[in-house]
């Protein structure tokens, strides 16, 4: 066997450092709370309510992304037009904007000084300090992840399949439901998971728009501020468990996807 070069050992060392950097704090935090504390925490109604609210609002954000993002992703994947790159950049904006800025930006149009905010309050929709507000914020930050994932999914389907389907007598709608959708659903599922994973981790933007009702990251922050590290850890463990479960599903789906090809 050939002797490994120095370069090989450098790459291995860097890899180990990075893995340790990610895993060490997480493992430390996950193993810090005792079982009794974890049990006590999950019996705490506030904790359960906040985690449930997090999952529920993130899921709603993903659903909205699915409904409105799918047609947009399809157009972006199938057509070329002047200004397409600009639209793609706009869709990516929520990824690069600092999180509290997102919250402040949303409040700027949802407040009483803006016609949109006035309109919403007239029809009885409240953004500030409401579940609706949380969903709006989470949709804002999660949408790019959905649109990009699904756009890639559509791009990987040959337009010739749709052409053949049309020539065999299928309308545009039948073609989408019989050919495009069955071939793209996995990328939609991945998009939904990416979008909701991103949404569930949002703190900065939500805390500006809605401190109450409390989603899990806000509760976590409050526990940390009021009672210290020891009391925030068990909440964190439960939240991370939920995120990990989402991540795991994503990995299983993408792995199965590559195996098919």
């Amino acid at each position, binding site marked *: 066997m050939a002797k490994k070069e120095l370069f090989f050992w450098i790459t291995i060392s860097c890899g180990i450092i990075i893995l340790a950097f990610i895993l060490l704090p997480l493992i430390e935090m996950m193993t810090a709370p005792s079982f009794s504390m974890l049990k006590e925490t999950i019996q705490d109604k506030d904790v359960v309510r906040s985690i449930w609210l997090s999952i529920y609002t993130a899921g709603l954000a993903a659903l909205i992304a699915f409904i409105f993002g799918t047609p947009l992703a399809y157009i972006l994947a199938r057509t070329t037009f002047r200004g397409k790159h600009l639209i793609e950049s706009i869709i990516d904006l929520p990824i690069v904007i600092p999180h509290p800025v997102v919250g402040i930006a949303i409040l700027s149009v949802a407040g009483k000084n803006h016609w949109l905010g006035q309109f919403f309050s007239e029809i009885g929709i409240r953004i500030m300090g409401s579940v609706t507000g949380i969903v709006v914020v989470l949709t804002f930050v999660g949408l790019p992840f959905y649109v990009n994932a699904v756009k890639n999914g559509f791009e990987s389907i*040959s337009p010739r399949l749709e052409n*053949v389907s049309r*020539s*065999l*007598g*299928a309308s545009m709608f039948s073609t989408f439901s019989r050919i495009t959708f069955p071939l793209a659903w996995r990328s939609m599922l991945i998009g939904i998971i990416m979008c909701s994973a991103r949404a569930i981790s949002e703190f900065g933007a939500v805390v500006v728009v809605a401190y109450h009702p409390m989603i899990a990251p806000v509760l976590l922050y409050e526990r940390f501020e009021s009672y210290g590290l020891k009391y925030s850890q068990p909440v964190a463990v439960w939240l991370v468990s939920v995120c990990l479960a989402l991540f795991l599903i994503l990995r299983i789906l993408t792995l199965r996807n590559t195996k098919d090809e």
Partner: protein
Amino acid sequence: MIHIENVNINLGEFKLRDINLSIEKNEFFILMGPTGAGKTVLLEAMAGLIRVHSGRMTIGGKNVTKVPPEKRGISIVYQDYALFPHLTVLENITYGLHFHKLPKKESKQRQNRLVEELNISHLLQRLPTNLSGGENQRVALARALMVNPKVLLLDEPLSALDPGFREDIRIGLKRLHKSTDVTFLMVTHDFAEALSLADRAAIMNEGKIEQMGYMKDIFQRPDSTFVADFVGMKNLFMAQFRETKAIVNGLTIELGTTPENSHGYLAIRPEDIVLSREKLTSSMRNAFSGRVTAIVDHGLYYEVDIIVEKVLFKSLITKSSLFEMEITEGSEICLSFKSTAIHNF
């Protein structure tokens, strides 16, 4: 059957200009041209998949210029087959039946006939990803013909196949064409394929149709230097015409007839130029002696370049005649060709 009149298509960088084409019912028509000539674009426009900017298209007398693809009755088979990867072979073949109201008995009969003719009965429950190129090709054909289209468009159906399979599929295509009353329009690069399948063809170049007509006319009497070059008329000369004679760079060639134009082009197929050790007279009206400047190996045959005075002729001969005549680079050789082998335009 199909009439395309003054069709223009604008796809930004690429344009199809002033396309006129007419294809008879039940014809096997060939579309040829170099890569990027616009052949696939024209097919997709005929199928209604690309919007036509101006002009008119009729199928069986009906104006279909603005008719959506699903209502045209035109099936398309792509080079990469474009089988639906999530459906089995059987589901692929019967896909079109969801949208065509046909009596069950009739569709079942057609399905059985196509499955048998294309020899795919053992594949019906498999997924396309597990099939070979030739099998995919036959499934794509069955799927396209299942809906009994008026026209079948074939976009280079044989070019992605192994040479051994091509022959089989070509024979299969010819048989399918005979057994159905479907009009076939096929894009190909291969002249042997074109000649064995079709009576008429069109040659496309840079978004235009250069020439349309009978295969043998295109091969023997090209209208333009592009077509002459494309169909392998390697001897293409600019010439002055004086009565029945053509003067090419000082060399006088007997045409046998008097051209209408005073100057133009003269084209001779390389296989029509006969080489010999001794000067041939007899019915060969043109005989010259020259020097071999190059011999190029093309596998089954050799291209021999001969310079006569200042004119370079290219001839194709078999390996055996090359050795029999002991032709080597620099050797003196006689060449001759009938005046009827000369095409001038």
